[in-house]
């Protein structure tokens, strides 16, 4: 077993009176791919956003690559450069070209030279199969292409960990495959990944581990075969029934 890279202990998050996370423990090892599934509103996004402190936890501890993010003295901007994040809505910088989207943080945050940043950017664009779109603006790209650019942008910071928050949920169905393909390649290359997704097929084939969340808790976790294939918990079973066969299990 490789060493742990993400260690979450007793993670709690409340928005005012609303308790969203009620004590999450999770350890992710280097190179592991963990998929998080669960019903809408169960706190999946909030949990993911606590891993790079886009949300500030109200309790518990988050350690990434040996750095405790929840420590008050932590240089959070520095720490975030080692955690890439891919959003449901892509969030490409609308006023910048694809290439500039990939270079701006490298230059302003990591202090890389223009030449070096562009070299890294073009490498990553090639990795997601969009080399020829370097000069395009985000508005000229399809949703699937935008999301692949967003992945390349995150990769350009050379992160240790990648977080994906429903990366294919906003895409037309025929564009989902390209994005999942890039993610699969990334997993094969050994990237540590935390993926919130409703793509059960992807979770089964790529994830080393699957977490089922509900009501602010991790209800069940284990290998994909077990959690998706043979869930032990009733809540997991009824959720999967609704996701896998929505027509016959409405309101189940």
């Amino acid at each position, binding site marked *: 077993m490789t060493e742990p890279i993400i260690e979450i202990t007793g993670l709690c998050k409340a928005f005012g009176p609303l308790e969203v996370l009620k004590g999450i423990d999770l350890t992710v090892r280097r190179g592991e791919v963990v998929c998080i599934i669960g019903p809408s509103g169960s706190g999946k996004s909030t949990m993911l956003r606590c891993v*790079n402190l*886009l949300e500030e936890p109200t309790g518990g501890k988050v350690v990434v690559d040996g750095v405790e993010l929840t420590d008050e003295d932590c240089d959070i*901007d*520095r720490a*975030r*450069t080692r*955690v*890439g*994040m891919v*959003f449901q*809505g892509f*969030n*490409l*910088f*609308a*006023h910048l070209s694809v290439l500039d989207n990939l270079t*701006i*943080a490298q230059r*302003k*945050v*990591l202090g890389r030279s223009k030449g070096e940043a562009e070299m890294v950017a073009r490498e990553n664009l090639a990795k997601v199969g969009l080399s020829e779109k370097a000069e395009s603006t985000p508005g000229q790209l399809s949703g699937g292409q935008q999301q692949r650019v*967003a992945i390349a*942008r*995150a990769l350009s*910071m050379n992160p240790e960990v990648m977080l994906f928050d429903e990366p294919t949920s906003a895409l037309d169905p025929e564009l989902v495959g390209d994005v999942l393909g890039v993610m699969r390649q990334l997993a094969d290359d050994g990237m540590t990944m935390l993926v919130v997704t409703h793509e059960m097929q992807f979770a089964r084939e790529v994830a080393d581990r699957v977490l089922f969340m509900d009501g602010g808790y991790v209800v069940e976790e284990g290998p994909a075969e077990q959690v998706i294939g043979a869930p032990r918990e009733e809540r997991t079973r009824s959720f999967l029934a609704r996701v896998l066969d929505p027509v016959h299990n409405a309101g189940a």
Partner: protein
Amino acid sequence: MSGKSGLSKRQRAKVFRISQYVLLVAVVVVFAITADWAEIRRAFFDFDVAAQQFPNVITIALKNTIIYTVLGFAFGLSLGLILALMRLSSVAPYRWLSTIYIEFFRGLPALLVFIAIGTGIPLAFKDTHITREVSIMLALGLVGAAYMAETIRAGIQAVPKGQVEAARSLGMSQGRAMITIVIPQAFRIILPPLTNELILLTKDSSLAYLLGSTLAEQELAQFGRQALTSFKSLTPVLVVGLCYLIITIPLSLLSRRLENKFGSGGMTTRGVGG
């Protein structure tokens, strides 16, 4: 199908439209008959007088109007940006200060601000020599900043939150994300209302006469007033008016084009011509 008048809906609409044209023509005709055209032509279209306004109306008056406007706009835009950021700050006193400033200067006629600057600055800073240009820049900018601050704030708030989240997730600090990601996008959104603000400042620069001026410092409006008395003709006013339009109409067209391009309407905080 048919109403009481026996006309269909479409026929009635047609009658209504025709009556609008008839009304318009009637107004024009009445106006044309009653006006004393000879008198109007003598007063406004005296070509000799018009010719004598050149080249000074361009080389002095138009030039000064543009200089004063640009100075006021530059200062107002910078101050407006600071005020907008204060307005959005998490530090409450900043928000209060900014709100007070904005309400104060939006509630005052620009004329009063010019008078206050014209008399107040020499009193308050006896020993420092503040030039006339700087006073005009201050007066125009102080007023313009109040309006531009609200426009800029609206622009910043119109940038989707996801943009900041993406920037922060890449390790940018709050300030860096604001400068490199949010503000450039906000300015694209608010270019049309900012162009309108420039038009308004162009017109407000006519208040510079309140600060006194030598001939070489006159802007368009004062140049026109002076010529009005020395030539005993309204023609200089017409010439000066045309000079204003040479500046404002292209700006107005630009603003409309930008609005179409970036698709942002209704963000002006004071209407042109108001």
